[in-house]
């Protein structure tokens, strides 16, 4: 697993207070991890801070699973 994926997982665990084992790539923040809409906004802000990237609103809307987040950040970092 990549360094980015590790860090994303850690942030999700911290912010949503869920078991690390539940944070699978396919896990949906809202459906599987119990996040509400404010949680998802906070998560995106946490990603922005941790990875020093900017995630515009239209991109943020599409980040609904752990994998979405990892893919988006990896793409930004690679660019």
């Amino acid at each position: 697993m990549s360094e980015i994926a590790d860090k994303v997982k850690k942030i999700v665990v911290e912010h949503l207070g869920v078991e690390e084992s539940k944070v699978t790539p396919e896990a949906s923040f809202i459906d599987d991890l119990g996040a509400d809409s404010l949680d998802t906004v906070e998560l995106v802000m946490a990603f922005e801070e941790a990875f020093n990237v900017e995630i515009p609103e239209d991109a943020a809307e599409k980040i609904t699973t752990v994998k979405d987040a990892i893919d988006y950040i990896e793409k930004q970092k690679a660019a």
Partner: protein
Amino acid sequence: MFRLDGKTALVTGASGGIGSAIARTLHAQGARVVLSGTREAVIRELAEELGEGAFYAAANLSEPSEAEALITKAEDVAGAPLDILVNNAGLTRDMLAIRMKDEDWNQVLNVDLAAPFRLCRAALKGMLRRRAGRIVNIASVIGTTGNAGQANYAAAKAGMVGMSKSLAQEAGPRGVTVNVVAPGFIVTPMTDVLADAQKEKLLSSIPLARLGQPDDVASAVLYLASDEARWVTGATLHVNGGMVMA
């Protein structure tokens, strides 16, 4: 009751009559208070007078970037995260609507509504994360009643109420409350300019039969800023001597 020991508060417009009373009251209840205003000499003097636990951070809130940066600046000078935000700063550009220029409209909406929004937004980021916080926005009875010559001010103050209710709904689940204090006619340099005849007329419309004092407003702010107001959010507390019962 109503102690604020260990809490950090930011009061905008702290150089004015109501703002300085709010700052004094919060400070007297044990809060670290950061005074903000455009007149640096005035807020510095007040901070020095209050002594320990009082700080100042000048800002011109008509500049979006200065409004945006003020929360961080306040936390830096106080050396602690912000627990209480009091959006008190405001200005008026009175003019009958048919004579009102876009500039007068925009300036009032910018300083009295957009700037408080920017400050709320910046403060909420930290408050939501910390699962605690108090925002008290100072509106006006004019936002409820309207007033000839104050279309811009009335719109901004009524807007502030709607904004606060929305923020209250967003922030409630995180233990952050957002409330409004709507003062009526308060004795300040801003109302001193009224003619005696106008004051007489005003008094006859106030059941409690006197103009308000800045401390009357400060006490209401203190309540909403305190732990004791923990189950009150999205509310507007009218402090107007009974002149308008909304």
